[in-house]
């Protein structure tokens, strides 16, 4: 026992951050009371990524914070992450954990047509090839993606934070939870159980990716304040159409609550012209929308606590049900 505690004392947390989400990295760093390591990530003029390591990480417990975001830069950020992991590996880090709040390519997780790439699996392979020992992520689009890895994956949930938000910031008595698609029914049902609320479901008929043709509402939302819950808002086509469907069925107001607010393409315009009274997302990705209806939940305490627990070898399962304040 003495030996292991001695080991622990020499082995400390090192926080590294790529360029995808500096604010989140800073928040986690502040929360843990550990400053970010001296690592520079640059892009050369020939568009290659270059990483400079400015301090020793030998035998340390390294956490690299990089999220998957950026219409132009998502692959750059991915390469940054891979090179950072590789750098730590070659610099003899004891353990390398990739903290990826929004897992990139998570939606390309199945061979839905002939010869379609399972890119999520590829990303999992790439992370492991680079030398990643552990992955912390949040609200994976499909939790089966964990099975793509041969290394431990901690899939954290934003649900406790969402519960807190709903309890404190919405009209709980007149609320109904709505899932915008059948895939999210489980997520919404779990929330509904915990809040003791009713839930409704919208069934959508998709003809092309990112395009929704027709929506059918299952359940009664008349006069209710609808809480539309989903794991991500990308082009917001689904959300806006679901909102319209709900309003046309007599809903009082519609509040969208999503984990990953990617808001790509013309999402801003769509939201601006929509009848959503609020759209709430977490800060797993940086949100740049300047719309008044956008509200944000901070999940950095959850990530920070997960890092702390992982480092100390404590159980992370507490975080599945509780949001650290």
């Amino acid at each position: 026992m003495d030996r292991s505690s001695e080991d622990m004392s020499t082995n400390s947390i090192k926080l590294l951050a790529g360029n995808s989400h500096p604010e989140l990295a800073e928040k986690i760093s502040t929360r843990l009371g550990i400053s970010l390591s001296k690592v520079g990530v640059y892009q050369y003029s020939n568009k290659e990524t270059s990483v400079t390591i400015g301090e020793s990480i030998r035998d340390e417990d390294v956490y690299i914070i990089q999220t998957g975001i950026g219409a132009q830069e998502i692959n750059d950020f991915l390469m940054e992450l891979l090179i950072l992991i590789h750098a730590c590996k070659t610099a003899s880090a004891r353990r390398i954990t990739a903290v990826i709040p929004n897992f990139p390519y998570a939606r390309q997780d199945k061979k839905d047509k002939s010869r379609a790439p399972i890119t999520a699996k590829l990303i999992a392979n790439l992370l492991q090839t680079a030398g990643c020992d552990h992955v912390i992520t949040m609200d994976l689009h499909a939790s089966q993606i964990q099975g793509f890895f041969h290394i431990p994956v901690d899939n954290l949930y934003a649900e406790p934070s969402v519960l807190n938000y709903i309890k404190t910031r919405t009209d709980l008595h007149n609320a109904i939870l709505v899932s915008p698609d059948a895939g999210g029914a489980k997520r919404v049902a779990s929330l509904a159980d915990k809040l003791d609320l009713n839930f409704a479901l919208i069934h959508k008929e998709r003809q092309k990716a990112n395009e929704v043709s027709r929506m059918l509402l299952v359940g009664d939302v008349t006069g209710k304040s609808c809480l539309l819950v989903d794991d991500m808002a990308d082009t917001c086509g689904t959300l806006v159409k679901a909102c319209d469907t709900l309003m046309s069925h007599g809903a009082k107001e519609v509040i969208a609550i999503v984990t990953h607010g990617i808001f790509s393409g013309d999402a801003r315009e769509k939201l601006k012209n929509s009848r959503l009274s609020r759209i709430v997302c977490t800060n797993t990705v940086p949100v740049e929308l300047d719309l008044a209806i956008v509200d944000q939940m901070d999940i950095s305490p959850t990530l920070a606590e997960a890092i702390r627990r992982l480092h100390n070898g404590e159980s992370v399962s507490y975080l599945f049900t509780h949001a650290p304040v």
Partner: protein
Amino acid sequence: MSFKVDLEYPFKRYHCKTQPTKSIVMSSIVIFGGESHPELVKKICENVNIHPSQVTLGKFSNGETSISVGDSVREKDVYVIQSGCGQVNDTFMQLLILISACKSASASRVTAVMPYFCYSRQPDTPYTVKGAPLISKPRETYTFESNPGTPINGGSSTKSNSSSSMTTQRPGADSSFKSLNTTIRNTIDLQQPQPSRVQPGVRPVLPTLNNTMSLSRIPIIPGGKVQTPRTSNADAGELFNSQNAGYKLWVVQAGTLIANLLTASGADHVITMDLHDPQFPGFFNIPVDNLYCQPIQMNYIQHHIPDYQDAVIISPDAGGAKRATAIADALELSFALIHKERRSQLLKGPPDATLTSGGALPVSPKPLVATLNFPRNINASSPPKPQISHRHGGDDVNQSKYIQTTMVVGDVRNKVCIIVDDLVDTSYTITRAAKLLKDQGATKVYALITHGIFSGDALNRINQSSIDKLIISNTIPQDKTVQFLGKDRVDVIDVSRVFGEAIRRIHNGESISMLFEHGW
């Protein structure tokens, strides 16, 4: 992008030349082209005599790369052609996804054809002038002086540079990085930098450094100093050096990683050309065929450079000497080397001690040293020497200083010079070399380059440099280069036949070693 099937194409082909009839074996080749270089893909396919297969490449609105393979690849021999140019990380990810898509669609073998292999050369010093994360705005004029300057022929380099520009300190020495940064910033005289990628609604990057740093990527400032707005150049240096002066800053070399990523995505074989490091194939656990542009380049010299027998092959740096000597030996031409070195010992010892690096290489019969304007006294009647010029810029001799010297080892006076290099990125090296050669009396300067990346304002530099003709291969699209420099000044040599023949031979299980010698 998708390629339309041109039905007439095979007939045209048969009309003009007798081609071997498509065997059954040939039909199991499938070639996919990435987005980076469609033109080369087309040419390679013409040489292999098949059509590129259908693949739709694009991006989802959230930026994720999307790929849809249109033709069956089951039990086929698949070749994926992607050059490491443009948005390197995007094209590289596209390649990886394409390979993995083919592999998971039961392709029997997937070969990555990377005419230019990205990340094969990365500078190992942080913040150097060359290839640094700093991108300067295209300027009107360039001096092409090496840094520090090379005062030759009556001090052609003005003494305008501040003394600090001549002295750099070793990164990693105590409190060095700050000054190194400052030095380099001052040296390269950056004006308003140009962000490498401007896009609307870009996230405000933390922290806001000064103008010089706000381009491309901003490092995450450690130590909770993010909130502090940075105002001066030196602060960026402090970033790395304020707390642990002892740690030697290092730049990650991504070569092994890239090799492993390719293997992990499912590539069984890699074909590339003129790798910067001959050791690079050793990073792979799969076969790598490194083709050479040299036979085609030699062919060009023999056919397009008048009186090439009297020309001199120049290597612009010591690293490329082997490549250049290979051409020089094969064509029986003389050879010269431009050598840039950093010495801390230059101030000590007799000045002659620094001038002895000529060795057995041919030196000028005429002592050109006499015409040089050395800051130190060098006996003009000293025996012939490699032409060397140096300048030291430190008034303060107490500090350990590095002094750079640039010299041409070999005789170039009244000669046609052919600079041979594998890669031109920022073009600092070859434009400086060209100037030095012209200053040494070269009549004409050709630059023979395999991979022309021309990032930042490289084309602008080359346009204003002393390079008379640029000969570049099409491993990377060169339309912009030709457009910018004009058709007279650029010749693009086609490497698609080498790649096509390599693909054909690899598919048929024939030896490709003859391609190394004869080209195609």
